[in-house]
């Protein structure tokens, strides 16, 4: 099976074989990453530029490491510090970078659809590292790989996504990916943090945490942004923790072998109990970080193969 797209802009355009192709290759890279010599030449000679228009430590580090392990020349740019301040438009920035002939462009942007827009203006492979409230495809893929390795399959599972669904690109990408792979997805959270029209997404919506967690195989917690805690969306941090924070008691309603996930960074004591997050029998949060590097290596490898094949078809010679 192969990955059939020239970019990775979101989960929405992908078909199940695309997803499986990335996960299968990522499985191999996960094994490579556990060896002493963690190096491959899949991206040797290629240039990867990370453009982060929004603060990120974890995702940026993960992409940077993934590129370096595959032998790419990696450059990371913190965009909010540079051209944006000078009033340069997104498209001008893209065209400027495009002139430097990058092969892989990893982009995070605070506005939904910004990465789609940028991908139309450059002739390299673009990876969406999160755009506004739209999508965060590599997060959904690394979650999927973590689930597949923990549960032995990625279908016919009951998966609950809990918390601030409305503002979460992670939730959107996960709803789409898990749905495409034929799982039952439940969303749990206060109605003020549910997006409009959510019932049409092929999910079950719960406002009560215990009812929602009943017999699920996977519990995915979402981060609650500090700025949402001010009484605008929820009354207070402590009431939120009481009703929607994951602790051992609430988790007891899930299946006995249910795993707990979180995309990080965690607010311990707001959406998740600190002890539970560290419980290696239940929490796979560290594995998620580990799979993140492997999934990003796989995605960039597959995109680079497609890019080189396309260039070869255009020029008729080996590159």
């Amino acid at each position, binding site marked *: 099976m192969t990955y059939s797209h020239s970019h990775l802009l979101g989960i*929405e355009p992908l078909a199940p074989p695309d997803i499986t192709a990335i996960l299968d290759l990522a499985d191999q890279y996960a094994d490579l990453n556990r060896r002493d010599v963690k190096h491959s030449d899949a991206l040797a000679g290629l240039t990867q530029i990370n453009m982060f228009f929004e603060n990120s430590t974890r995702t940026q580090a993960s992409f940077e490491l993934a590129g370096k392990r595959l032998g790419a020349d990696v450059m990371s740019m913190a965009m909010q510090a540079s051209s944006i301040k000078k009033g340069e*438009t*997104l*498209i001008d920035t893209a065209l400027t970078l495009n002139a430097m002939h990058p092969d892989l462009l990893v982009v995070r*942007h605070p*506005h*939904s*659809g*910004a990465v*789609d*827009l940028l991908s139309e203006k450059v002739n390299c492979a673009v990876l969406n590292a999160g*755009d*506004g*409230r*739209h*999508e965060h495809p590599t997060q959904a893929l690394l979650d999927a790989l973590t689930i597949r390795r923990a549960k032995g399959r990625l279908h016919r599972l009951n998966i609950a996504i809990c918390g601030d669904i*409305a503002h979460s*690109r992670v939730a*959107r990408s996960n709803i789409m990916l898990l749905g495409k792979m034929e799982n039952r997805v439940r969303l749990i959270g206060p109605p003020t943090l549910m*997006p*409009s*029209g*959510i019932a*049409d*997404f092929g999910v079950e919506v719960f406002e009560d945490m215990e009812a929602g967690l009943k017999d699920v195989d996977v519990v995915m917690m979402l981060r609650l942004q500090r700025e949402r805690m001010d009484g605008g969306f929820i009354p207070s941090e402590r009431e939120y923790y009481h009703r929607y924070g994951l602790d051992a008691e609430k988790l007891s309603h899930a299946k006995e072998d249910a795993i707990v996930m979180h995309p990080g960074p965690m607010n311990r004591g707001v959406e998740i109990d600190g002890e539970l997050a560290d419980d290696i029998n239940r929490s796979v949060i560290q594995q998620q970080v580990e799979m993140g590097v492997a999934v990003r290596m796989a995605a960039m490898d597959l995109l680079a193969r497609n890019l080189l094949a396309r260039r070869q078809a255009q020029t008729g010679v080996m590159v």
Partner: protein
Amino acid sequence: MSILFTNARLIDPEAGTESLGWLLVKDGVIAATGSETAMPKADEQVECTGACLAPGIVDIGVKVCEPGERHKESYKSAGMAAAAGGVTTMVTRPDTLPTIDTPEVLSFALRRANEAAPVNVLPMAALTKGREGLEMTEIGFLMDAGAVAFTDCDRVISNTKVFSRALTYARSLGALVIAHPQEPILSEGAAVTSGKFASLRGLPAVTAMAERMGLDRDIALLEMTGAAYHADQITTARALPALARAKRNGLNITAGTSIHHLTLNEMDVANYRTFFKVKPPLRAEDDRQAVIAALRDGTIDVISSMHTPQDEESKRLPYEEAASGAVALETLLPAALRLYHAEDLSLPQLFRAMALNPAKRLGLDAGRLCAGAPADLVLFNPDTPIVLDRFKLKSKSKNTPFDGARMQGKVLGTYVAGQPVFEAP
């Protein structure tokens, strides 16, 4: 000087009829119409070969970017676009830079319009200074200078005290107030309408209910003040019962809608296509159908182009940052004809909403095909297929959502006071 149009399919919105016949223009005014027999003599004859002859479109809410942003649209380019689109009267918006809120700025705009635009231009002025919603403008002086209506365009006057006083003052002068019904806080920063599509795209959204909330408030203010009021764009099903009730109760209220809300829905935004970003945002298909039904039964009176030129730079941005608005003077008629071809509305019904009703609301003689009305006419073939190429538009800005669209309808000639201002090549 007389011109005789022969063998024309006469679209008479007032009588609600279409019939084959002739139309005689004398000294810029329609002198007579009739069927094929007993044709009068004239200095000049235009053989229409069965094409439609209708009153020229009266378009309320055209943005011409003078003063301030002539690179987006000038009176000359807007006027040429209007002529090419069969629009014989542009009722222009005051949301320019600076705002048209004093008689001096209004006179400047009107002078530019008279020099450069081949069609009639009737300017509107702001209702509050700088469209800031704080102090009313010199409504009396502005009327003397030629303002035909008062509007803060897409800005809602959220201070109810200010708005009620402005409405009261406007009523005493018989001035028409045009408002944008919308709950301002709910709609702040919104790029799309709430719902599945908005959530899928992760875009900031406004509930369709915000329009009804805005309209409900304005209707209450009309009951208080008795002012003459026109809602610029009613685009949602939920607002329609309130509008119908206000009309039944005898308030002096009319309503318009935009051609884009009649012919497109929220799904057309697809993959963040910013040329489809308009204000208010495109709605669900159910809303579009409800608005068409409301036009048919007369709850909604007017179709406008809401012509809003934007340059490429302000549209080539992430969706939420991109500017709102679309050019539509030239696409108004072919887009409206989609409703005719879909058998939603007849040609007389369309021209009632695009010519007769807006003219009546502004107290103009235009919009009719009867003797004595000004000879502002559009001659068009409703069936000619076209593929729209945005770079062939006469507007300086090319931001149309219909680029590449297959449409039907071609303007063959446009006449203002009997004079041709556009003839198809």
